[in-house]
C-alpha cells in the first residue's frame, strides 16, 4: 500500500517533469526540470531499496552532470534563442509517429511478458547479506572488476577529450 502510493506519486512527478524538460522554451528551465526529474528518480530508487544508487544519482547526475549542462547553457545561451527558425510541424509529426511506433512495440513486449508466468527462481533467490553499499561494492570489485576498470578508462579518455575539445589552443 505504501509502496503503491509512493510509486504512483513518484511516477507522476517523474513523467510530469520529463514532459516539462522537453517542452520548456527556456533551456535553463529545461535544465531545472531535469534536476527535479533526477531527484524524483533518486527517490524511486530509495523505494526500490537501492540506497547507494539513489545517492549516486543525486551526487553524479543532479550535482555533477546537470551542473555541467547548466554551465554550458549559460555560456552558450546568452546571445540569441537557439530555435529561432526551427521547422516544428514536420519534425513534430515525424517524432510523434516514430515514438508511437516505439511505444506500440514496448506495449507488445509488456503484454507478452504479462502473459508469461513468473519463473520460480525469483522467489528462490536469496537477499544479499549486509547493506546495499557493501553488496554493490563487492560485486564491483569482484565479478565486475574488468568492466569497472574499463569504465574508469572511459572516464579518463572522456576527461582528456573534453579538455582538448574545450580548450582554445593547447
Amino acid at each position: 500500500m505504501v509502496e503503491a502510493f509512493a510509486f504512483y506519486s513518484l511516477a507522476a512527478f517523474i513523467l510530469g517533469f520529463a514532459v516539462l524538460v522537453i517542452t520548456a522554451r527556456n533551456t535553463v528551465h529545461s535544465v531545472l526540470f531535469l534536476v527535479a526529474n533526477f531527484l524524483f528518480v533518486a527517490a524511486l530508487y530509495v523505494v526500490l531499496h537501492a540506497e547507494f544508487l539513489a545517492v549516486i544519482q543525486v551526487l553524479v547526475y543532479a550535482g555533477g552532470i546537470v551542473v555541467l549542462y547548466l554551465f554550458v547553457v549559460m555560456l552558450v545561451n546568452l546571445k540569441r534563442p537557439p530555435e529561432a527558425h526551427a521547422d516544428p510541424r514536420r519534425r513534430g509529426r515525424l517524432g510523434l509517429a516514430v515514438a508511437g511506433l516505439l511505444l506500440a512495440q514496448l506495449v507488445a513486449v509488456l503484454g507478452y511478458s504479462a502473459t508469461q508466468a513468473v519463473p520460480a527462481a525469483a522467489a528462490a533467490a536469496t537477499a544479499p547479506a549486509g547493506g546495499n553499499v557493501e553488496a554493490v561494492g563487492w560485486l564491483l570489485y569482484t565479478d565486475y572488476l574488468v568492466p569497472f576498470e574499463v569504465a574508469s578508462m572511459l572516464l579518463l579518455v572522456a576527461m582528456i577529450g573534453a579538455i582538448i575539445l574545450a580548450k582554445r589552443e593547447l
Partner: protein
Amino acid sequence: MASGRLTKAAHGAAREGAARGDGAPPATEPGSGAEPRLNMIDIVIIPLLKIVIVFVAVLFGVAYLVLLERKVQAWVQVRLGPMRVGPHGVLQPIADALKLFVKEDITPARADKWVYTLAPMISLVPALIVFAVIPFGGTAHLFGKTVPLFVADVNVGLLYIVSVASIGVYGLILAGYASNSKYPLLSSLRASAQLISYEVAVTMTLVSLILMAGTLSMVGIVEAQRQAGLWYVFAQPLAFFIFLAGGLAETNRAPFDLPEAEQELVGGFHTEYSGMRFAFFFLAEYANMIVVSSVATTLFFGGWLAPFPNVHALAFLGLVPGWIWFLLKVFCFLYLFLWIRATLPRYRYDQLMRLGWKVLIPLAIANVIVTGAVKVLL
C-alpha cells in the same frame, strides 16, 4: 507581506525535506510493529521533535554566528563591533531579522521571476536537510527513554551529505542567471567552477576516511574512532587540511570568497536580491559553515567523544555529556572560519583554480593511495 508568506512556505519546505530524509528509515524497517502505541511515539513524535529542535537550533545558531562574526572581525581590527542593541549588542540578530522582514522585496524588471524566487530556497534547503544525518551525541536518557541524539542514521550517511551539498550549488548558479545582471552572472560562473573543482578534492579526502572507518554511516565513523582510540585528524592530517581548504571553498568563505568578492563583483550572486530573499542566501551561507564544521568535527575530531579517553587524570572529562563536546568542537571550527576571514587575503581566480586542480586534488588522490596501501599492508 509577500516576503512573510515566502518565508513560511520555504520553512515548511525545509521541514518537509528534513522529514522526508528522516521518514525513510522507519518505513524500511517494518519489523518493529510489536507494540503499536510505543511505536507511534517512537517513529513519529520523537523524530518530529528532534527535527524541530535541530531546525530551531540551527537557525538560532546561524543568527548568532552572524553576530559572532561581526564581533570577531571587530576585535581583530581593534573595534567594538555592534554595541547598540542590548548589552554588547546581543540582541543585534533580532534587529537584523526584523529589518530584513520588513524590507521591500525587489525583483528586477527583466529577471526570470520564477527562477529568481526559487534560487534562494534551493540554496537554503540543502544546507538545512544535511543536519538529518549528523550525530550530535551518542544517546540520551529522557523521561525513561533512550533517545539517540541524531535524526537518522542511514548507512549511506556520508554520501548523503556530499550529494545534498552538491545540490546547493544550483542556488548560486540560478541566482546569477535569473538576476539578468552582469555581476551576478560572472559571480555564479565563478561559483559553479569553484564548487565543482573543490568538491572533487573534498570527496577524495572522504574516500580515505571511509577506508579508515570501513563504514559510510556518520554514527559508525564516530564509533570507529572510539574503538580505535584515535581521532582521525591524527591519522589523516593531510586529509584534514584538504577538507578544511575545500570546506572553506565550498562555503565561499575567505580566502576563497571569489563568488562574492565585493571589490570586483559588487556583491556577487546576490547583488540584485533584497529583503527576505537576500536573508535566505545569508542564512544558507552561515548554515553551510555550521554544516562543514559539524562534518569536520564528526569525521576528524571524534564527534561527541570526549578528548583524552586514555589519560586517567582527565577521566572526569567523560562526565560531560557528549552533545556539549560536539557543540564545543563545532564552535572551535566556526571560530577558525571567522579567524581565517579576518586574517588571510583573497586568492585570485587563477590561483584558486591552480590550487584546486594542481595541488589539492593530486594530494588527495595520493592520500587515498597511501591510505589504501597502508590499510592493505598492515
